[in-house]
């Protein structure tokens, strides 16, 4: 058993591929923890300003475009499914399905960004903008522009993560298409998928907080 030829993917300081994969996965989770804490700062800002201006946040969140937000929730959750399936087929060494599912995931990401762009455009033309740029006359009062500051910061940082995730998945899909992954080695697909799932996780909390409550 110990005489198996070492895999080309195995770094010399790991005894076997499984240990290497565990280490890679743990490292990815540590990175995701820092990402969670990065977003937590904005969630804290949201909590504080919502606490200070409950009425303003209640009224301002009614200006959010719920139908587009809900569609984006469905899009992102479905993209999480496709990337999970992509990882599943990557583990089985099915190159064609892996690449296809990753491409579908990237397409869902693009749909998300396009819808987000429409939302931003609507807020832009209506003057529902952060701070002193707020000039929407339909709703005024203390804290209203603060809602939009938080809205643009949170969805903006999240959108940036969607774009980065799309880039990561595109890179991994390219590597998969070149046949770099196999039944024994598909760690990058899994790690890229973890990043994409995190983007979905954040949105799961952003959507009800910004659009609904």
């Amino acid at each position, binding site marked *: 058993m110990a005489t198996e030829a070492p895999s080309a993917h195995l770094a010399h300081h790991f005894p076997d591929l499984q240990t290497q994969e565990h280490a890679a996965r743990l490292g990815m989770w540590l990175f995701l923890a820092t990402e969670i804490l990065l977003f937590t700062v904005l969630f804290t800002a949201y909590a504080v300003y919502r606490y200070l201006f*409950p009425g*303003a946040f209640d009224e301002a969140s009614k200006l959010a475009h719920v139908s587009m937000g809900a569609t984006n929730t469905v899009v992102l959750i479905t993209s999480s499914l496709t990337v999970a399936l992509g990882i599943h087929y990557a583990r089985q060494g099915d190159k064609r399905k892996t690449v296809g599912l990753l491409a579908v995931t990237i397409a869902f990401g693009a749909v998300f960004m396009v819808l987000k762009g429409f939302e931003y455009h609507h807020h832009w033309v209506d003057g529902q903008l952060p701070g002193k740029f707020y000039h929407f006359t339909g709703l005024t009062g203390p804290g*209203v522009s603060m809602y939009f500051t938080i809205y643009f910061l949170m969805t903006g940082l999240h959108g940036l993560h969607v774009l980065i995730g799309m880039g990561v998945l595109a890179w991994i899909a390219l590597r998969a298409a070149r046949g770099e992954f196999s039944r024994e080695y598909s760690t990058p697909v899994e790690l890229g998928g973890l990043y994409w799932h995190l983007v979905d996780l954040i949105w799961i909390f952003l959507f009800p907080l910004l659009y609904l409550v």
Partner: protein
Amino acid sequence: MAAPAHNEGKHLGPAQYVLIWVVLMVLTGATLAVWKTPMSDGLRISAALGIATVKAALVALFFMHLYEHGGASRLVLVTSMMFVALLIGLTLADNATRFPYANPPSSSPQDEVPFTNAPPPSNVPPPPLRARPEPAYQGH
């Protein structure tokens, strides 16, 4: 370590993934239903956050494979959640226990109040100094 060398048996299949997706869709519908139902603000936030937490747990456990892999990765997620709770909880507790006027009046451009640099009325005697000022103290 007595970790199993092969945990292939625990890997989920496409059918399970689709099932979890269906549950997530149903929960998304539940979130929207909660939004449409008239209820108190606190209850609405609790319900929305509760559903979101269940959805996040499903994604983390099954899509992100914490259910089948577990180990240190779970510990990392739980630890980060603890810090999330600490940061949000303590910050909110701080705000909830402040005097109401600690809230700045012009925190929105809609309610600009004229700002004045005039000194306070001078007929009020200044507050007494400390009897013996501490030399190291540089604040205020």
